[in-house]
């Protein structure tokens, strides 16, 4: 599957962006255009997920996946935190901030995974969009608690504000909002607006991943804050989390595609909702570290290898449990 991955235009555009940044090309995607694409992609997957749920109805699988997703987002930062402190040699504040990123999820990794899996005949359930939205924020709480338990410098100021800021984060609101609109509108109501969200989707994903390639490589090239050990953790953490996610997903009875997606969600690290929250809640934590690990290492690793590995694991586990 990795070969198929590497010849998909979606991935090739990511590689093009990464390559362009490495040869220090001045290619840039204007920031408002990138934001626009990200809004489009979130609206599209939210709507599509909601429309699917409207036609399949609420199932026990949906409930199980939702609860599992929440639990994973709360729990995964704990493992990450201890590895980041011990093997990564980070202080408690930085470790807590990075851990929160790894408990949360990356929307683009999710979308790319849906694309790659669907192309190979593995179609995940529509409700996984909702699971993703649920997984975005709990990790922030765990990350903060870990940092605060271990360090007196991580002051409590503004916790009330933070809860509000996290729950009303633009991407969370847009994803859940579009998901609910999809449920209300249903297949029929969705039909008139469908063309834009169907026709453009994969092409926009290409251009968006072109930008992500540029951003990921520039992060890596411009930072001086990533040690070898942190770089290794940027690969080990998605492997651990991806395995946990896929195994638990399979064990709660999800089909292989959805189990793989749960693995991808666990493996992915946030680069939108969590960094902004950490800048507010743990201003002493160094953004150079968490952005470089999340965007510069884990994101490319997941796009090129992680997704395929979760899919392979899910397919391997399916006959065992099924």
């Amino acid at each position, binding site marked *: 599957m990795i070969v198929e991955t590497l010849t998909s235009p979606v991935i090739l555009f990511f590689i093009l962006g990464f390559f362009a940044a490495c040869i220090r090309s001045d290619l840039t995607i204007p920031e408002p255009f990138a934001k626009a694409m990200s809004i489009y992609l979130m609206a599209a997957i939210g709507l599509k997920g909601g429309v699917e749920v409207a036609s399949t109805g609420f199932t026990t699988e949906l409930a199980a996946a939702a609860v599992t997703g929440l639990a994973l987002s709360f729990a995964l930062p704990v493992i990450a935190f201890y590895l980041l402190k011990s093997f990564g040699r980070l202080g408690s504040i930085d470790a807590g901030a990075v851990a929160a990123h790894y408990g949360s999820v990356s929307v683009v990794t999710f979308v790319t995974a849906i694309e790659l899996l669907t192309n190979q005949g593995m179609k995940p359930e529509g409700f996984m969009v909702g699971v993703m939205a649920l997984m975005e924020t709990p990790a922030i709480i765990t990350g903060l608690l870990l940092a605060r338990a271990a360090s007196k410098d991580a002051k409590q100021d503004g916790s009330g504000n933070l809860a509000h800021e996290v729950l009303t984060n633009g991407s969370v609101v847009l994803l859940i909002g579009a998901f609910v609109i999809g449920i209300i509108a249903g297949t029929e109501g969705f039909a008139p607006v469908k063309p834009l969200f169907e026709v453009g989707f994969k092409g926009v994903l290409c251009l968006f991943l072109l930008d992500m390639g540029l*951003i990921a490589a520039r992060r890596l090239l411009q930072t001086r804050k990533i040690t070898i050990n942190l770089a290794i953790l940027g690969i080990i953490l998605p492997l651990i989390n991806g395995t946990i996610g896929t195994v638990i997903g399979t064990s709660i009875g999800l089909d292989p595609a959805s189990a793989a997606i749960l693995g991808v969600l666990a493996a992915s690290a946030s680069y939108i909702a969590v960094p902004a929250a950490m800048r507010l809640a743990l201003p002493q934590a160094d953004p150079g570290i968490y952005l470089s690990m999340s965007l510069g290492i884990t994101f490319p690793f997941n796009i090129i290898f992680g997704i395929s590995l979760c899919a392979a694991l899910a397919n391997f586990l399916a006959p065992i449990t099924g």
Partner: protein
Amino acid sequence: MVATVQRKRIEILLDTPLVPRMIEIIKKVDISGWSLIKIASGGSRAERWDHDEVTGAAAKSIILMIANEEKTNQLADAIAPLLESYGLLITIGNVEVVRGDRF
């Protein structure tokens, strides 16, 4: 010639996610107004960053304010505790202001 008065021109360079917190402080000091300018990119000895990122966490802005000396001092005192952890850069210059009674 139009009459002018002397006022302080305050610039606070900070991470965009921190702007709302700073505005709250500014309002407490009761400065008459503020204007926000986006920084497109920047760098220090260690790192270089561009605004062109999907994650807004690395974006920076300048909050520009005109205020009288008294308010300026109050603001500087109110911000002081955040200086280190927020990584703020604050500059204060003298300017002549036309219609300066408002500040």
